């Protein structure tokens, strides 16, 4: 009996194998590869390619044909390019997407064409709530969550007075709102800086004057690099706890180096995470590309694993939308971050940590977890999502 089953499974695998030879899995990866934020897209791209390479160029048993496009961080350009991916390249899945404004711009055309959208970073709140879609799945987080983790941490640590500083754009405002959701102490000041601002001397002077127990900030990319350097130069490192999200990570550490040591960030993963899948990923990534992967890389890697698992679960029938939806919801894979479960709105339910920047024994800079803040945490918008 056992033999029969094995045989049946083998022949099934063979059939799938032949089907795969004829049918490819076309994936469009849209990331930001130009402008100051290009490094984020680079991490995503490299990690996704690594995952595909490790699986011998196949995802879910199908030969993966990955088209990479640069959205230039211009939403209308992104819409144009995503239309090209869908209609010209006839992709089955769009993945990547670094920034929320790009995500919001491409969501509609992608959903309308009944193409799956697997986010490896951006997780804007409308897509988690009212505008959720059975075609959307995230292998990253909902935008608020990392900020919420820092808010919870600040609350748990008993900080009474915190200054919040974020760039004046939607993600910045969402960040401040996310932080405040679990932090119940006093917000001594909320500082909104200009997006792309590089000199924070004015803000730092203000922060010092407010004498807070800690500061919370969200400064992705070059803004974060400058803030961290200036924060440390102003002699504040070690005096005022520095809590952050998407500011201290492996995209900024090569530039900030020692200046960031000891500063905190909220994340669902860090290269220092202590689980076998993570260790294998980090080692393979550094071997391949010669730099330390960030959480952006990890999310893109997990996106590939998620797609792999879902396509496998749907038996390779990527054109069967209903089967694919079911597969995405139930797919299980060994996430680099440890626990991962798909919520009803297509966003993950996962753990969140406080991580801190360290200098590794090999002289490279990386983050490592300090303590777990949330366990199996879902986002607050899922209840507004009408899919069930």
């Amino acid at each position, binding site marked *: 009996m056992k033999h029969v089953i094995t045989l049946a499974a083998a022949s099934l695998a063979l059939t799938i194998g032949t089907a795969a030879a004829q049918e490819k899995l076309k994936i469009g990866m849209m990331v930001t590869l130009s402008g100051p934020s290009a490094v984020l897209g680079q991490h995503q791209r490299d990690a996704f390619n690594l995952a595909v390479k490790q699986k011998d160029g196949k995802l879910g048993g199908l030969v993966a044909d990955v088209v990479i496009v640069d959205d230039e961080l211009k939403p209308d350009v992104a819409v144009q390019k995503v239309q090209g991916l869908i209609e010209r390249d006839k992709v089955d899945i769009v993945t990547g997407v670094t920034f929320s404004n790009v995500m919001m711009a491409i969501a509609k055309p992608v959903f309308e064409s009944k193409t799956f959208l697997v986010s490896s970073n951006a997780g804007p709140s409308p897509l988690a709530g009212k505008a959720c879609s059975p075609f959307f799945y995230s292998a990253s987080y909902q935008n608020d969550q990392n900020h919420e983790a820092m808010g919870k941490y600040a609350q748990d640590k008993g900080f009474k007075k915190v200054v919040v500083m974020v760039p*004046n754009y939607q993600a910045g405002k969402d960040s401040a709102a996310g932080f405040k959701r679990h932090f119940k102490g006093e917000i001594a000041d909320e500082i909104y800086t*200009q997006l792309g601002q590089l000199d924070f001397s004015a803000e730092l002077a*203000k922060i010092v004057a407010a004498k807070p127990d800690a500061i919370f900030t969200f400064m992705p990319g*070059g803004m974060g690099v400058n803030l961290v350097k200036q924060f440390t130069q*102003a002699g504040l490192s070690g005096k005022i706890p520095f809590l952050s999200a998407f500011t201290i990570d492996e995209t900024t550490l090569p530039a900030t180096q020692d200046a960031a040591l000891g500063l905190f960030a909220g994340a669902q993963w860090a290269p220092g995470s202590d689980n076998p899948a993570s260790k294998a990923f980090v080692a393979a990534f550094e071997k391949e590309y010669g730099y330390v992967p960030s959480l952006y890389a990890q999310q893109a890697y997990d996106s590939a694993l998620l797609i792999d698992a879902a396509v496998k679960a749907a038996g390779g029938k990527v054109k069967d939308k209903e089967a694919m939806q079911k597969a995405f919801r139930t797919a299980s894979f060994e996430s680099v971050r440890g626990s991962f479960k798909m919520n009803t709105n297509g966003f993950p339910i996962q753990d969140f940590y406080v991580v801190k920047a360290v200098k590794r024994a090999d002289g490279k800079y990386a983050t490592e977890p300090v303590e777990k803040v949330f366990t199996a945490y879902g986002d607050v918008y899922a209840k507004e999502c009408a899919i069930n």
Partner: protein
Amino acid sequence: MSFTLLAVQTLNGLQFGLMLFLVAAGLTLVFGVMDFINLAHGVQYMLGAYLTAVLAPHAGGFFGALALALPLTLALGLVLERIVFRPLYGRGHLDQVLATFGVILIVNEGVKLAFGAAPISVPVPDLLSGSVMLTDGLLFPVYRLAIIGAGLGTGLLLWLVIDGTKFGMLVRAGATNAPMVSALGVDVRRLFTAVTAFGAMLAGFAGAMVTPILSVEPGMGDGVLILAFVVIVVGGVGSIRGAFLAALLIGLVDTLGRSFATDILKLMVSAPTANRVGPALASMAIYVLMAGVLAVRPGGLFPSRSAG
């Protein structure tokens, strides 16, 4: 909004303004003397920063790199002038804008190709690291004081050169009346070349000076270029004195606006509204200032051409 905070912010504004002045000085000279719109000026700033950042590990740190970066930016300025600018002196502004915009694209992308998209950093030189205690608990980084010093020093030097040398006299005369200078039998082409290269070096110097406090990345010159244009238009095209005052004005307005706009608004409207409107107003402050100045004085604060 204590007095000490105001003092620190004023220093910060001063430092930012002096940075802008270094970039704007070259731009206003090139524009004033040659009537040439050089959008590639921001690129010179970026090149100064990149050269410093890339050379620092090999040239014995920041100062060594700075010493190498200055002549190199000067040389790059000469090359650009020779290849791209010179054929365009007699042409319209539109052609100049298009060609120098092309130069921006090439250099930004070239830098990315050569050094990667990720920001590069330069540590603060040990000599200038740390902070000084200004008053009770308010620290000010030594390096920023050094920038203020360098900016003031360069300003003084420029003033001495422009006001006290033959070269300066020609530059001043050129800014007011270029045809007259050439009628005097001066080799205007050589004057132009000198001014362009000198301006490029000033911008490169500014770029080099900011490497320890800002991240060095492709496209870092674009935003600075726009601000420098704001400075020279507010100051009056071709006027070094105007550029100096306008740069300080804009540095202060921007810095103080960012620090206090929201707080001041909170006195008038509810906190959430102030949090929303304040930052938007602070971002606009320098543009409002510029529009205001130009509405009243279309030629800027110190119009050097009589046409103003």
